[in-house]
């Protein structure tokens, strides 16, 4: 399988220590939680990303993240990878995260780039959902 060591490593750690790697869920109804869900079962990937924010000045900062992902090893690793990228960022900064950063961090092979695109989409959706609630 054309997986980089980084993907395998991230996948295995996430699988073996789900809590430590932010697998889980927040109550989507909470006002400070934004939920994004992208992909489709028939396509082989579904990512659900949740951000928990607190206000700071006139913006919001991502305090905590939870996710669940159905998909191949690269999809799971990509979701897990964005957790660290998100925590502590303002929503404006989080919006700037590009799939290429995820792909490079995990050394995704070209055939798996769509996993990073999906991960980027999940961030946008979660932020949109959060902002919609405010």
């Amino acid at each position, binding site marked *: *399988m054309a*997986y980089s060591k980084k993907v*395998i490593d991230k*996948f295995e750690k*996430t*699988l*073996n220590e*789900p809590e430590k790697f932010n*697998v889980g*869920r927040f109550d989507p109804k909470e006002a400070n939680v934004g939920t994004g*869900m*992208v*992909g*489709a*079962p*028939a*396509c*082989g*990937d*579904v*990512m*659900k990303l949740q951000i928990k924010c607190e206000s700071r000045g006139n913006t919001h900062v991502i305090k905590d993240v939870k996710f*669940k*992902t*159905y*998909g*191949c*090893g690269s*999809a*799971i690793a990509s979701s897990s990878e964005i957790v660290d990228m998100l925590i502590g960022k303002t929503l404006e900064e989080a919006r700037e995260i590009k799939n290429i950063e995820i792909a490079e961090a995990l050394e995704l092979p070209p*055939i798996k780039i*769509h996993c990073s*695109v*999906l991960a980027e*989409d999940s961030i946008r959706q979660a932020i949109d959902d959060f902002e919609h609630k405010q």
Partner: protein
Amino acid sequence: MSTKVTLPIYMDYASTTPVDPRVAKKISDHLTLDGNFGNPASRSHKFGWKAEESVEEARSHVANLVGCDPREIVWTSGATEADNLAIKGIANFYQSKGKHIITSKIEHKAVLDPCRQLERDGFEVTYLEPNEGGLITDEAVLDATREDTILVSIMHINNELGTINDLESIGKITREKGIFFHVDAAQSTGKVPIDLSTLPVDLMSFSAHKTYGPKGVGALFVRRKPRVRIEAQIHGGGHERGMRSGTLATHQIVGMGEAFRIAKEEMDQDVKKIQSLHKKFYDSVSKIEEIYVNGDMNNKVSNILNISFAYVEGESLIMALKDIAVSSGSACTSASLEPSYVLRALGRKDELASSSIRFSFGRFTTEEDVDYTLSLINHAVDRLRELSPLWEMYLDGIDLDTVEWQTH
């Protein structure tokens, strides 16, 4: 956990088998100067005669396992070549009688691709749908027959599901209609008895490496009575009664012969052992919630078990089971990013098709291997479901078919 297992555990016997040590010995006896290395086509000296003797003995072993005359066996480089030779050979020879061929959607690519090629050459091919259980029924074959049908090519045992087609009933139809019947039996030898002296089959493909023989050798059965003619696809010397030229690969052929001789002798004990492993495996795995067996459980070989683990994606499951060598119905592992065409033909939803794993056992699988595999599966499925948003939705009672997904 038992210390007796060696990792990784091989659970992919349907893809290939290790060569039986007895077969390896036979092969190595036919390579070097002090061995039987001659060209079986050499008529002028003892080296050739001895090699020919070995090849003919091997031919008898193959014929003996499948109940035919040794003269009906043509050596090939494998089942893929045998399938090509049968399908193109019949099509080329009998095209003046008609240009319609019937096959199925769940055939191996070694059958489907030659059929596609013939379509480009002006033939018409009907691809039959399997029933829900992965079987091709005789009714489906009968319905598809036409005046100009010259060949039906249906596999015996499906390589992904292990389902067994009823050759007797399909062959009855082809005989009545005067249509040739080719069967890809690459997965059959040593698993189920085959008796070509009574089976209404005209051509049958075999492979050595699925039955503890070497890779790179196979055979095509071409019936003599009633006579079946095929047009050769490889020319150059007229070996194998003109049907397949090329110097015979003595060492591989004797390997196949020995493997099939052992298969004949030990099929009963092999099958018995594998049946008990299958039972153990199935009894345990069926306790996992939301799993689906692909293929008719009552009509399959016990060395193959294909299971979909709902709400878990197949490729991630294979990654999580890295100490177990298995195949996935999710072709995400290959370049095409598509679920198995066989499972789709069964009508399985894409997500179930891509969450499938084929486990296949064999002569060297131990009970400890099965125990270890089962514990890993339980662990991996639990963990991946904990990670799966779909599993969460399932537990929340959400019908996934009603969700509007954002497809890409």
